[in-house]
């Protein structure tokens, strides 16, 4: 019955001939492990096609949605991280397999006549796969992919004569944006896969036409493809599958960095590791034309000519040697690029190294060290930014303007940048951990923790007020009257009562700031009467002065010689101070150099706009 059915099926379809053709291909010298790379590549490609299609069903190619949809796949969708991870790491395994496959073909002489065409088709396939890798890197629209791909498309403009036009057609305009994504996506998910399928069909057809290249050896008998070679191929694919899944689980999927932002530098921009050697080559030449066009062009030209030069024995030997050298060279450049970026991790700082007076060596070492330091710092920052963004998204969700908007409106992300741009020339914001922002010239107080009890206690410490941390660099230092005189006079050598008085005042004044980090302590102080006691102490004299003699605090004292401490360090106070320190509430007479950042009637002309001021103040106060 079954036999009849199959016979009928064969008559109508001819499947048996096809099947036996496929399975009973003779392999001279029998099956071998070294032949498995081709099948593994097919397996990897099919995996990419299918996982890619499924990713496509969850991906949205636009500047406001690409990153967001990938983020959603990665963090929200069931096993999305697995799917994306497999697609990501399988792509990388394809690059390794390509190299192995090519190596095997060339070493075994399988590129020699009559198989020239198949070798050429193989090279085309290699370029297509590299193209897929390149275009895929941009699609998540994160900082990493954005900046690395930006370098790659800028290389397109090096093409003679029509370079600029080519670049515009690729990018979909002169600047990266929606059309860059739609174009890259069409190429990545449509054009290139279709071409791969076509060329792969050709590759296999040519392969069937000329058969496997193998030297039949007397001690090994021929075998059919089925079952021994099929088993080996299957094992190879299985191992690959396990390896990829293992890496995905270990890394918890592919990395995603913060969303692309053309105005936000990303000093850790590097291509994926398999393009690092090309990247490294760009650093080697004064002209990128050589590194990006000439050298790769010559190499590709050489590869294309190999089947012709391989006809003679010496040519074949040269081919094998050159290929090994090229792969070795690429490997070397990859390691070199990696080492350059991680130099600072594995070497001591230039200050701690002895150069035996060799200034050149020192400056070269310093350059290297600092470049690497910058890279590592940027990488760390990128991770921190991403973590922060995840937190924000959890709390607020992604707005329709995209996740970049969350970042641009986040005090914690923008605060340090605004501080660096506007305040760092005089102020530090440094907790002493080495991570903080250090002033160019310390001429104003360190604002880290400003408003807190600890900060205020430091200011009122006769030893500390004169340091750079507080008033050391300011005009207030030079006045021998006023605050400086009070702290270094009245507050020096306090007895127990005096100390108690001071502590009370610190609690009360610091509570004015309403710092989120101090909310609990402030509440306790309010409840147990410490605040009231502090306010009372504000009016009590030390040796010569009471605080209230110069400062106003709520309804105590009068506006006069010194800044109003009502709401000192609070959001409103800081805003006012930054907007205009010369206001009578602050330092109408003795502000030596702080500019008014937002005191213009025309808000356009302010150095800080409302929104920036708000973010800066919130960051300074540790508000979220």
């Amino acid at each position, binding site marked *: 019955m079954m036999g009849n059915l199959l016979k009928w099926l064969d*008559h109508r379809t001819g499947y048996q001939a096809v099947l036996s053709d496929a399975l009973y291909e003779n392999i001279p010298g029998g099956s071998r492990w070294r032949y498995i790379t081709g099948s593994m590549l097919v397996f990897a490609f099919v995996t990419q096609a299918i996982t890619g299609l499924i990713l496509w069903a969850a991906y949205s190619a636009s*500047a*406001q949605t690409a990153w967001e949809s990938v983020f959603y796949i990665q963090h929200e969708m069931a096993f999305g991280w697995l799917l994306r991870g497999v697609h990501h790491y399988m792509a990388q395994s394809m690059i390794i397999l390509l190299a192995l496959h090519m190596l095997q073909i060339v070493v075994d002489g399988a590129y020699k006549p009559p198989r020239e065409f198949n070798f050429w088709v193989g090279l085309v396939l290699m370029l297509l796969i590299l193209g897929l890798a390149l275009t895929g890197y941009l699609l998540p629209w994160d900082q990493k992919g954005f*900046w690395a791909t*930006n*370098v790659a498309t*800028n*290389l397109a*403009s*090096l093409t003679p004569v029509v370079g*600029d*036009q080519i*670049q*515009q*057609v690729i*990018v*979909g*305009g*002169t*600047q990266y*944006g*929606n*059309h860059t994504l*739609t174009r890259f996506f069409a190429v990545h998910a449509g054009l290139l896969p279709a071409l791969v399928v076509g060329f792969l069909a050709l590759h296999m057809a040519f392969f069937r036409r000329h058969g496997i290249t193998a030297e039949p050896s007397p001690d090994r008998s021929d075998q059919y493809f089925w079952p021994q070679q099929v088993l080996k191929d299957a094992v190879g694919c299985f191992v690959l599958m396990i390896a990829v899944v293992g890496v995905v689980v270990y890394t918890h999927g592919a990395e995603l960095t913060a969303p692309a*932002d*053309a*105005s936000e*530098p*990303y*000093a*850790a*921009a590097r291509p994926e590791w398999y393009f690092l050697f090309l*990247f490294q080559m*760009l*650093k*080697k*030449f*004064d*002209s*990128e*034309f050589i*590194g990006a066009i000439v050298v790769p062009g010559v190499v590709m030209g050489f590869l294309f000519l190999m089947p012709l030069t391989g006809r003679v024995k010496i040519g074949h030997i040269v081919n094998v040697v050159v290929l090994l050298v090229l792969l070795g060279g690429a490997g070397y450049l990859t390691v070199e690029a990696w080492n350059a970026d991680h130099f600072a991790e594995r070497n001591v700082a230039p200050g701690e190294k002895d150069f035996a007076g060799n200034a050149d060596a020192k400056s070269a070492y310093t*350059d290297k060290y*600092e*470049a690497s330091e*910058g*890279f590592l710092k*940027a990488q760390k920052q990128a991770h921190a930014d991403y973590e922060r963004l995840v937190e924000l998204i959890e709390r607020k969700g992604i707005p329709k303007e995209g996740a970049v908007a969350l970042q*641009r409106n986040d005090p914690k992300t923008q605060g340090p940048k605004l501080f660096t*741009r*506007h305040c760092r*020339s005089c102020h530090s914001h440094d907790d002493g951990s080495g991570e903080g922002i250090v002033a*160019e010239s310390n001429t104003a107080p360190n604002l880290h923790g400003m408003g807190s009890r600890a900060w205020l206690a430091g200011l009122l410490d006769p030893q500390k007020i004169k340091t750079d941390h507080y008033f050391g660099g300011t005009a207030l230092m030079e006045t021998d009257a006023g605050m400086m005189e009070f702290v270094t006079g009245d507050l020096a050598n306090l007895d127990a009562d005096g100390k108690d008085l001071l502590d009370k005042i610190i609690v009360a004044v610091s509570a004015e700031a309403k710092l989120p980090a101090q909310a609990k302590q402030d509440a306790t102080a309010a409840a147990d009467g410490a605040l009231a006691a502090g306010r009372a102490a504000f009016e009590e004299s030390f040796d010569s002065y009471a605080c209230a003699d110069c400062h106003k605090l709520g309804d105590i004292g009068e506006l006069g010689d010194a800044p109003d401490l009502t709401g000192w360090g609070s959001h409103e106070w800081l805003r006012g101070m930054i907007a205009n320190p010369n206001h009578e509430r602050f330092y109408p007479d003795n502000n030596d150099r702080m*500019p008014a950042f937002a005191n213009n009637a025309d808000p*356009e*002309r302010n*150095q800080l706009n409302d929104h920036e001021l708000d973010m800066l103040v919130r960051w300074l106060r540790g508000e979220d």
Partner: protein
Amino acid sequence: MTTTNSESTTPDQPPPRERRNFLAEGAAIVIGGIVGLFPVAVGLGVIFDPLLRPKKKGPGGKVIGGGFVRIASLDSLPENGQPQQFPVIADRLDAWNYFPDERIGSVFLRRVGENEVQAFNSVCPHLGCLVSYARGKNYFHCPCHNSAFQVDGEKIEIPGKINPSPRGLDSLEVDEKKLTQTGEIWVKFENFYTGKKEKVVK
């Protein structure tokens, strides 16, 4: 339709070739070629749209890009000539989206005289990463392939050291009249093609 029931296993012998008919062959090639190219041909406009419609207009026919943009006031620049980086806020058009007042790039500004300001685009002329200013060492450095520029934007050339940038940082035009009259720094913000000796506006 008698063949459907036939159990014969091979197709019929092909009929003998006709005598050559150049007209039919030519017509087949031409017409086949046209319909073959048709699907791509109708898409050429969209593919080359960036070249065919290079200047895109914003709402109300507003020209986007290329004009002077207010960056900062002169007060915000230190007097010692140290460069400061500022974002450039202007209208941006991204295909179907229009963004009024968006960050479209960044510039370095530095004071070089009483009423004189130098402005550079932060984009590295090598291959388009963003350069940063190394304060302690007073030069611009690009984190991508180590291009380096003096504080005045000139490319640093030290024998034996590779500096892959083909030119110095791209300086931008500053509106001098506005600067002297209002103390505001307005800069003509443009991007340039990278990797070339000359500055070519994008």
